[in-house]
């Protein structure tokens, strides 16, 4: 054995050393490649998990968003119904007023966003009636002048209820609650505003509200015939109502009648 080492060729010694180095380097390279593969595989797996998580979160946010919108609509119609129930309006009245308001708004030239906001705000126009005494609201006969003065207060009461909010929707609702009994000729209440001084939202809601209320049958009065409603609108064009809105109504009558049919009250 000793003999062997003595006679070893220096070239072989050098080659053997090279081989050892080569083996070491190869081993390290293999280890690096394996490590790299492992890192990439794990990274892909993590990325997929994170992607799935993101997708789940997105879906959650979307569902939540929809939930919020649905809730908002419900709250609006409920608030509107509270006001209307105190004035003995029928179930779908606020929904129809909402649809008519949007329809008029679009034909009037308002943008989709504003029209949609009015659609959501207009059902709340009578919310102030929650603060009017039952004895007046439910009085079967005609109101005395004093009682009527109290009744008129539902406009200001509604405005006071809604005006503190900074939400555009509730600000719109506040304006509409305040002004929906104003008349184009300045003979309305509470402020006797005239023409364009009445906000366009209020002029539209006033028309939609009257159109629907007249067409509804109530316990103490039958529904007006269409012919009588149309005659009234011709008469009140430029008086109670913005003439442009009356024109829109007659020009697009079928659309209004379609909404009335779509949202008609269930037969009692």
């Amino acid at each position, binding site marked *: 054995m000793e003999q062997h080492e003595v006679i070893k060729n220096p070239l072989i010694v050098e080659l053997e050393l090279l081989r050892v180095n080569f083996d070491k380097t190869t081993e390290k390279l293999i280890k690096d490649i394996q*490590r*790299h593969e*492992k*890192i*990439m595989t*794990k*990274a892909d*797996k*993590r990325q997929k*998990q*994170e992607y799935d998580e993101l997708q789940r979160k997105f879906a959650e946010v979307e569902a939540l968003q929809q939930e919020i919108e649905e809730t908002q609509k419900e709250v609006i119609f409920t608030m509107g119904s509270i006001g209307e129930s105190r004035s003995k309006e029928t179930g779908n009245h606020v929904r129809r007023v909402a649809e008519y308001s949007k329809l008029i708004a679009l034909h009037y030239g308002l943008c989709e966003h504003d029209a949609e906001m009015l659609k959501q705000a207009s059902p709340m126009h009578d919310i102030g009636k929650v603060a009017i005494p039952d004895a007046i609201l439910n009085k079967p006969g005609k109101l005395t002048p004093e009682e009527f003065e109290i009744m008129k207060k539902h406009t200001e009461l509604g405005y006071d209820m809604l005006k503190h909010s900074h939400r555009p929707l509730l600000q719109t609702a506040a304006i509409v609650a305040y002004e929906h009994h104003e008349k184009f000729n300045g003979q309305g209440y509470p402020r006797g505003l005239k023409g364009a001084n009445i906000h366009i939202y209020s002029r539209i809601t006033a028309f939609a509200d009257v159109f629907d209320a007249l067409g509804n049958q109530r316990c103490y009065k039958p529904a007006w015939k269409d012919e009588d409603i149309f005659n009234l609108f011709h008469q009140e064009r430029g008086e109670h109502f913005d003439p442009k809105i009356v024109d829109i109504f007659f020009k697009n009558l079928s659309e209004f009648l379609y909404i009335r049919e779509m949202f008609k009250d269930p037969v009692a």
Partner: protein
Amino acid sequence: MNNLKVEATQYTPEISLETYGEINIKGKSYPENTFEFYMPILHWLRTYFTEPNAPHSLTVNVEITYFNSSSSKLFFDFFDILDANKENFNITVNWIFDRENDSAKEAGEDFIEDFTDLTIHLIAK
């Protein structure tokens, strides 16, 4: 040799390197240039192990929640340096992860698998 402190950003973790023998890495790791970001950290670590006055014990607390693949590579390089000095130093690694975060836990398990001679504790929060 000085302490080194790196504040967290939206993409990088908070790091503190203490000359008394403690390293803390905490947060996410998605650096724009991962190698450049971790270069001073690896340099500090190598210096620590050559410093004659450095304490014999070194504790490394890592709490990485999310990280990209090149960060993963840099962590291996970091562990390589620890591994090369395990004979002369008393090194303890605490790999801290959130119970809900499976991939952070798996990463810790990978290091244990690759560095069998290092003391690595998996700590679930």
